[in-house]
């Protein structure tokens, strides 16, 4: 699939035309023949993409992960927009993982983009954040879970619909503690994201009264993920790796890099449940969630894309819907009005998670429930019952206002 910017533009244009045709009655227009002109709201989408491997072929991210969610939200916005004379379109720009994104972002600026979703690394995001602010552009981080983007490196023009690692770890920890599985061992990978995830788990353990009785590092020595007889070795390797651990209730794996984590369930020395980046996994969405009207967005997504909706799709859907909601409610595509609307303390959105979602005003992180599920279904959603908070129970997940290192001024 070609993800160059021109192609989705054409597609979006076609979709917009299609929507105009489908909604031909144009209700308001019929009453008032001199209907208001259609206001166009363009949304940019900057992503760093390269095919990724996973230990299980089922876990290989689809090529349009994220973008597909944004497109479904564009369609949703356009249905609403057809009643109000607003039309939304998506401009997708793709780069590589380690590439300098400043040149392509400058091109987006030249095209007049005022709202840009980003699915790029924290470093890439920071390389354009201030440039965006100087040009009055709002960024929506739909991809990075790095806490630092909401803490030391937070920005007043960067909103985050992706949850942080601390939110994910806290959501998981609350459930394990609720289950009275309080004694953990932590197996973590040797790459930076694995270490960051492990840090979030250590923090969550302290926060919710769980105990990590032992930690083990799994060094990535560079093995091929696909070998015909690899499974034989794995079956011998994983029990040994988890042998002689102190008594524990759960094995937590921190392996975002997919080096060993997915091999751990069912292969531990002691028969114990596995959670973390494998086994019971925390995320912003689950492809099998049908609660709270979820079957409707799932159905819509599957009809549009032919696959199930993943976390990043939901994060992008939410960002585009936030912009749609702001444009609809302010009847405007004026950046200042839209920013003020989103930053209002009463701003909220329905996102199929059982309660409204909205932004933490101290760092513009979306507060949202966290799904806990395995490969098949949803096991629970956090916050769990009994984890109370004076303002919002959703703020029991992740870094809370009193502890934040973010200073937006």
């Amino acid at each position: 699939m070609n993800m160059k910017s021109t192609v989705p533009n054409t597609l979006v244009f076609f979709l917009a035309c299609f929507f105009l045709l489908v909604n031909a009655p144009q209700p308001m227009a019929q009453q008032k023949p001199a209907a208001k002109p259609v206001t166009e709201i363009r949304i940019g989408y900057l992503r760093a993409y390269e095919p990724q491997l996973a230990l299980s072929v089922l876990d290989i991210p689809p090529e349009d992960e994220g973008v597909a969610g944004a497109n479904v939200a564009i369609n949703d916005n356009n249905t609403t927009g057809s009643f109000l004379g607003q039309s939304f379109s998506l401009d997708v720009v793709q780069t590589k993982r380690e590439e300098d994104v400043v040149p392509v972002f400058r091109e987006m600026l030249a095209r007049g983009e005022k709202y840009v979703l980003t699915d790029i690394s924290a470093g890439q995001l920071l390389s354009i954040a201030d440039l965006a602010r100087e040009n009055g552009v709002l960024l929506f981080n739909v991809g990075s879970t790095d806490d630092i983007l909401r803490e030391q490196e937070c920005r007043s023009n960067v909103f985050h619909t992706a949850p942080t690692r601390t939110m994910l770890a806290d959501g998981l920890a609350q459930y394990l503690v609720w289950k009275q599985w309080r004694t953990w061992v932590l197996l973590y990978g040797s790459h930076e994201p694995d270490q960051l995830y492990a840090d979030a788990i250590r923090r969550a353990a302290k926060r919710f009264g769980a105990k990590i009785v032992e930690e083990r590092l799994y060094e990535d020595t560079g093995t091929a993920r696909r070998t015909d007889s690899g499974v034989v070795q794995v079956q011998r390797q994983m029990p040994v790796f988890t042998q002689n651990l102190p008594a524990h209730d759960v094995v937590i794996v921190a392996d975002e890099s997919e080096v060993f984590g997915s091999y751990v369930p069912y292969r531990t020395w002691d028969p114990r449940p596995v959670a973390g980046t494998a086994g019971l996994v925390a995320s912003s969405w689950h492809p099998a969630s049908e609660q709270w009207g979820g079957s409707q967005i799932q159905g819509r997504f599957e009809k549009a894309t032919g696959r199930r909706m993943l976390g990043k799709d939901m994060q992008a859907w939410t960002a585009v819907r936030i912009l749609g909601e702001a444009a609809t409610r302010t009847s405007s595509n004026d950046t200042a009005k839209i920013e003020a609307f989103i930053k209002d303390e009463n701003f909220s959105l329905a996102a199929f998670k059982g309660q409204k979602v909205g932004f933490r005003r101290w760092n513009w992180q979306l507060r949202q429930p966290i799904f806990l599920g395995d490969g098949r279904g949803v096991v629970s959603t956090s916050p769990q019952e009994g984890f109370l908070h004076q303002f919002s129970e959703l703020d029991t997940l992740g870094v809370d206002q009193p502890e934040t290192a973010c200073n937006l001024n």
Partner: protein
Amino acid sequence: MHRYAYLLAGTIAAVIQTGPAWANAVYVSNEKDNTVTVVDSKTMEVTKTINVGQRPRGITVSHDGKLLYVCASDDDTVEIIDTATHQIIGSLPSGPDPELFVLSPDGKTLYVANEDDNLVTVIDVDKKRVITEIPVGVEPEGMGISPDGKTMVNTSETTNMAHFIDTATHEIVANVLVDSRPRFAEFKPDGSQVWISAEIGGTVSVIDNASREVVEKITFEIQGLRSEAIQPVGVRITSDGKKAYVALGPANRVAVVNTETYEVEKYILVGQRVWQLAFTPDGKTLISTNGLSNDITFIDTATDEPIKSVTVGALPWGVTVAPN
């Protein structure tokens, strides 16, 4: 005693059509176990359980009480049940995923919200034929009709609008933005206003039917309960137009609202995740479906006190009461 009650219940079910004023059949759709529970409004006991299609939600009874219509959402159809025999005798071509509907005051037309297709389907009930489909916002849900039958209101959950539709032309004549996830539309008996609940927004918007503008936004506050748990869904207004009842979902309460002052006068504790509401024809009793506790609660509308809760099927969703 039990045998006697059972026999009595059977008799009541059989004579419902001729309708002794003191007992009405209450029909409850149970979303999770694909059944409709029949409860006697007088004895407040279950008299019958009817197996229906998958995921029954919206439920209404014909104005003569002879036919029951049930949205079998996952079967993409509206089932017709003979209330005398409790047999499914046919279906209506509802379009995909019907969730809620409303019957016109003359009983001839059924307006169905199709959640998956952003459509309202208009059905000729006698001919069992689709008259037309009206494109509306994303995830149409709530359906209300003015007492004169001239205006139908549909709410769309992701678009967050109340769409006012002229039932003569089948065209949208006004779109009114309301709060997040509007679930239900209820006209006042004099047709002057329509009340729209917003589940995620946590409010009820009162829209003037002449100006088509929001004239009041009702909010709810319950001590000891976080605001996110207050999720208004079902709304019913008394026949004298003086009181409105609002089911508050996971807040487990029904709010009683004074329609003149718009003040919440009382919160009635019912069961868990209270969803939809229905009056008995004499208006003396209100019945709520409490999804998570698998029961319905009878409420005395004179005192606004709960009278009794009755266990029905799994995840009770909608409720309607036979008129006779």
